[in-house]
Structure formats: C-alpha cells, structure tokens
C-alpha cells in the first residue's frame, strides 16, 4: 500500500494487473499495433504469393525436371523458347486474345452498366442475373459452350442453319483457327463482362446527379453528357477494371483448355495452357515456369503505368 503526497492512500496495482496495464499501453502505441495487424496478412502473402513466385523464378532459371535435381542455367529457357514455333504462336495469340477480348468487354461493359443504371423493372433481379456468368465455375460453363460449338451437336450451327443464316454444315468453330480464336474470345467476353458491368455500374452510381442536371439545364444532350461527364469521371474506375482484366485475360486457362486444348495447330494456345503442356504433362517444369513468367516484365510495366495514371486522375 502506498501513501500519496496529499495524504490519500492509493492502492498500488497488483503485479499481474500491472503487466496487463503495461501490455495495453504498449498495444495502444500506433507503431506497435499497426505492424501487428498487418503481420498475418504479410505472412499469408509471403507463404502463398512470395514463396511460390520466388520458386517459379528459380525454376525458370534452371533445368528443373519433376522429381530430379536441377541446375541453374540462367536465361537459357527464355532464349530457347523463342526458337519454338509453338511458343511464338502462343505469344501472338496472347496479345490478340487479350486486346480483342478487353476491347469488347470494355465497350459492352459500359453499355450494360448504363442500361443497368436506368430505372428498370426487376432491377435487382436483372443485376443479379448479369453476374451469373461470373459466378458459375468457369470449367463448367465452358463445357456448356464446348457442347454448343461441338461439331457433332452444335446448337449454334443448328440454329443458324434453321434460320437460314448459315449454309450446312455451318462453321467448324473449334477446328479452324480464326473460328476457334473467335470462340474462345466470345466465351471470355461472356464470362468477363459482368465484372466490367458491375464495377462500372458502381462508378456510375457514384457520379453526383447534380452534374447531369446542370448539364441538362445548359442544353447538353445524352451524348455530350456521356462524353463530358460520365466518361471523365469513370476514368479511374475504368483504369482499375482494365488493369485487372488485362492480367486475368493474359493468364486465362480454363476456357482454352476445355474448348480447344490450344488447337487447332496451336492457334489458341495461351501462356497458361502451353506452360501446363510443357511443365506438367512433360515434366519440364523449368521451361514451363519460363513460359509462365515470360510476360511478367510486360505485365509489371502495365501495372505500373495504369496505377500511375489512375493516381494522377484521382489527385
């Protein structure tokens, strides 16, 4: 028991209580609590992202073969890959596939978002339904598309022929290179469109109504309102959506694997499907990792440039 100067007797805290008090004080400090909260997420990132990424980088610089000791070979895998016709074709496919798919997803996504932003009956139901392609497991929905494009049972061709839009037997969707590329792009657009539409819709809803009212009062028509109000204010959202979609589309796997397995004549192979073929099915994981990482510097640059431009827009 202690006596204070004013003669009031103050109870000294018990040792256990004192420890708890000190711990609380320590945790109240921002420089302690902040890192403590971030640590679990950091650990997860280290284990689930950084470690596999570092392993992939190491594999790509080695002659790693499944279950065998590997040696460091520098960038030989990257150089050798460029000599492969299949790889060069894949490289070209990836850019064609990504650019066309993103262009369509962007235009259709904005259109759909503008439609969903209108006063519609069953608005909630429609918004929910729009998300369906994005929610259904890709492999499952792509199997449905495969059946629709299948040469023997193609419902697309059957309908086209019935409506006299096509001459029998109709296009060989998965057997000719341009049709096959069209098919995989169509399915990718179908699947990726909800992501664009819903994110852009959120951006649209955040635009103050007063701006439109003022523009309308000044005599601006729908096109001018879209061009001078909607589009500039949507730019940061569009930047983020395009950024994410570029990464997802470049690394697409399921759609191509299920629909064409990279064929015909490698004309629909993407980095992920070719990496699987070389790395897992043949066991050459060094080469497979190099295929996966080939575009890493390009994608890093895209991320940097996009984020920089978005930050500029926001500021």
């Amino acid at each position, binding site marked *: 028991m202690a006596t204070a100067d004013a003669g009031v007797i103050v109870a000294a805290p018990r040792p256990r209580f004192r420890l708890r008090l000190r711990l609380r004080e320590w945790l109240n400090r921002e420089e302690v609590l902040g890192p403590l909260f971030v640590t679990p997420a950091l650990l997860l990132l280290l284990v689930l992202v950084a470690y596999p990424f570092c392993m992939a980088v190491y594999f790509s610089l080695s002659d790693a*073969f499944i*279950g065998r000791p590997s040696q460091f070979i520098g960038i030989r895998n990257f150089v050798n890959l460029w000599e492969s*016709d299949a790889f060069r074709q894949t490289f070209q496919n990836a850019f064609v596939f990504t650019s066309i798919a993103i262009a369509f997803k962007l235009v259709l996504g904005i259109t759909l978002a503008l439609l969903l932003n209108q006063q519609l009956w069953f608005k909630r139901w429609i918004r929910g339904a729009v998300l369906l392609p994005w929610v259904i497991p890709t492999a499952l929905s792509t199997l449905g598309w495969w059946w629709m494009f299948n040469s023997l049972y193609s419902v697309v061709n059957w309908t086209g022929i019935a409506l006299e839009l096509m001459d029998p*037997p109709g296009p060989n969707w998965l*057997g000719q290179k341009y049709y096959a590329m069209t098919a995989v792009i169509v399915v990718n657009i179908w699947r990726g469109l909800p992501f664009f539409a819903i994110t852009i819709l959120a951006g649209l809803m955040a635009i103050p109504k007063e701006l439109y009212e003022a523009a309308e009062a000044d005599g601006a028509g729908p096109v001018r309102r879209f061009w001078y109000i909607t589009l500039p204010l949507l730019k940061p959202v569009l930047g983020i959506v395009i950024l994410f979609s570029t990464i997802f589309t470049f690394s697409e796997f399921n759609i191509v694997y299920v629909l064409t*397995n990279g064929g015909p004549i490698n004309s629909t192979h993407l980095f992920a499907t070719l990496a699987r073929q*070389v790395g897992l099915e043949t066991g*050459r994981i060094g080469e497979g990792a190099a295929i996966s990482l080939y575009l890493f510097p390009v994608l890093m640059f895209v991320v940097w440039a996009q984020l920089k431009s978005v930050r500029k827009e926001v500021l």
Partner: protein
Amino acid sequence: MNKISRRRFLITTGGLAGILASGIPPARGQQREISYLCWNNFAPASDKKLAAIGQRFTKDTGIKIRIDHIAHPQQAAKYASEVQTQAGHDLVEMRMHFPWLYEPQLVDLSDLVKELEKKHGPALSSARETAMVKGVWRAVPQYRTFFVACYREDLFKKAGLKIPDTWEDLYTAGKELKKMGHPVGIPIAQNYDTISTAGPVLWSLGGKEVEKDGKTVAIGGPQTVEMVEWYKKMYRDCMEPEVLSWTDASNNDSLVAGKAGWIHNPVSAYLTARNRKMETAAGINHHRSLAGPNGQRHETDVPRHIGIWKFSKNIEPAKEWIRYLLGRREVYDEYVMSGDAFNLPAYTSLVDHPVLKTDPKFAALRQEGVQFHCYGWPAPASDKIQLITNSFILPNMIAKAVTGTSTKEAIAWGANEMKRILAG
C-alpha cells in the same frame, strides 16, 4: 471426471513427445493402410470391380486400401504435385511412358515383375519398353488397351464394300462411306487419338518420327511424304472438316451416334453402344488393324502399369496389393473380365484371354500378325520424346498439310520442331 495422476500425465506426454519426435507410431496403433490413385477407366465396370477386390484384399490381409480415381488429363498434374511435395498416394497407375518421366521417384519393382512373369509369362514388349527403365522395372505391367479398326458392318454390307485390309483399301471404302453420309472418322487435332492413328500409318509405311538412337529426327523421308499425302486425300475424299476439332472422345461419339462409318479406336466405342443398348451397337464390329504396302501391320498399344512412390511409408503393403491384384490368377482374371476386353492382360501367356470369347465382336482383337508399339517408337522413351508427343507435332504437321500448307512445308515445320526439342 477422473483425476489424472502426475505419474500418468508424465508417461502420456512423454510417450506422445517420443512418437512425434520419431514419427513412428507404437506397434499397437500401427494401422496398415495404403492409398492407390488411378484413372477413371473408360470401362467403368472395372473400377467397380477394383473397389470390390480392394475390400476383399482388406478382409484377407488386414491392410486397408483407399482407391481414388481422377480423369486421365489430370493425372500428370496430380503426379507432379505429389512428387514435388513428396506426399500423396502410395501407389499410382501409370500410363505408357510415365515410369520414364518419374523414374528417380519410383521404387524398383523388378522382384515383383519377376514373380508375375513366372506365373503369367514374360510381360508384353510394349509394357517392357515403357515400364522398364534402364534395366530396372519402375512399375509393374497391369493391363493394356490397344487400337483396332471399328466399323459399321451393316453399312459395309449394305453398300457391298470390302472390309479394308490396308490403309489404301480404307481410302477406297472411305470414299463410298462419305457419299453415303457416313464418313471415316480419324481425328486430326491436338489430341492423343490423332497420334494413335498417325503413328501406325507412318510405321506401316516404314517411317518413324525419331530414329532408334532417340537423337536423330526421322521425319522428312519419302515415307513421311507418303503418309501426309494419304492423309490429304483421306481428308478431302473420305472425311469431314470436323475432324480438325475433335477430342479423344469425338470419334467414339461419331460412331456411336450413327454418323461415322469407320474409326480407329479401342473397343470402348462399341462397349458404350452395347452397354447403353444403342441402336448402332448391332451394326458395329471390329476388324484387324490395317497394313501398309509391304503387308506390315503396326498398332498403337497403351499399356498401363502400377508404380510405388519412393516417398511412400508403406512400400511392403503396397507390394502386397499388387501381388493380390495381379499375382493371383483368379483375381487378375476377374479384374480383366470386368473390363469387357478394354483392359487386356499385359503378359504373353494370357494374351488369348477368355474375355475375348465373351462377345463374337471381340474376335478381331486377337490381332494376328500385328506389331504393337507405344508413341515415339522405335526411339527409347525420354522426356524429349514425351515433349514431341505432348506438343502434338505429328497431328499439327498433318493438320497444316490438310488445310492448305504444302506437304513439303508442313513436313519441314514438323522436322524443325522435333529437331529443336531433341537439341534442347
């Protein structure tokens, strides 16, 4: 609640610490349990039979067995992850050249194969070529599935067509079949069935992809030109462009659905039609594999084996399972019979198996005078040969030629791709 004495607490925790440190459970707690990963067999009845045999095995030996199945396209990825993590199943089903790919990770099973060969005769050459790696059996031959000619006997009879004996005869019959609306169905796509047909056509013409040394590309000779030209006229006159988009199952579907008049496939197409009581089943039959101009008949064989991972902690019980399934004649027979001639024995003394007498349409499966090989023959199996196969170079070379690229250019492309892989 019972009171725990200090002494009992110390004994229990000390014991637990010992088990955790050594990783060996006490004898009383040691449950002999093995796990076996295999594919979803195209003859599903044999998977059911395998499960039933597994239950009997547990009853007879006291060893528990867990049998898992995955689709065959997923096998390579699954095996790669098991090998990289050094964890997973004890036993794995291995198709064709898998033992070569995973050689350092597989237990030497030569003693076991010797036992089986004493009982059933030497393993078939295709099984030996693929499961024996550098003189060591890395997997035990389990069964084989081979390709054969499957055709619509009713259509052939109706049109008065002669059953083909050579690939050239097939062209003659194929032209008529296409006119009848029942084209020949040979896939020319990025799938394994395409290689399973292109290989025998090339071999029967005296050609090959890679020389026996495994280092020299053999594509490019006159036999390759002959093969490509044969494919071009077949595609033009006997088939439809849909074959360019086919998967491994498409030719089966086409025959069973009543469209194709002739396909090159294992017996599974007929089994599907028969077991599902489809209209086409009565009209489907098989004939011997086709010959080249010199009368040589070569055919694709798909042997399957059972391997044991080196990281397995249950190697002996795993061997027990192989002995039980393949070493007991009555069990092996029962298993083979359940596969309806899709899973045929992989040992010479059992080639003329009773399963071939269960249906008159299996008569052609005796395949007299036919030589069986695996992909890449005569080159020895290796990761490079596997990459040539998995990169679908032969199918793409043919696809290029039939869709407009000149024969010379298409062959040069194929030869270059193979050279690049072999040099890498």
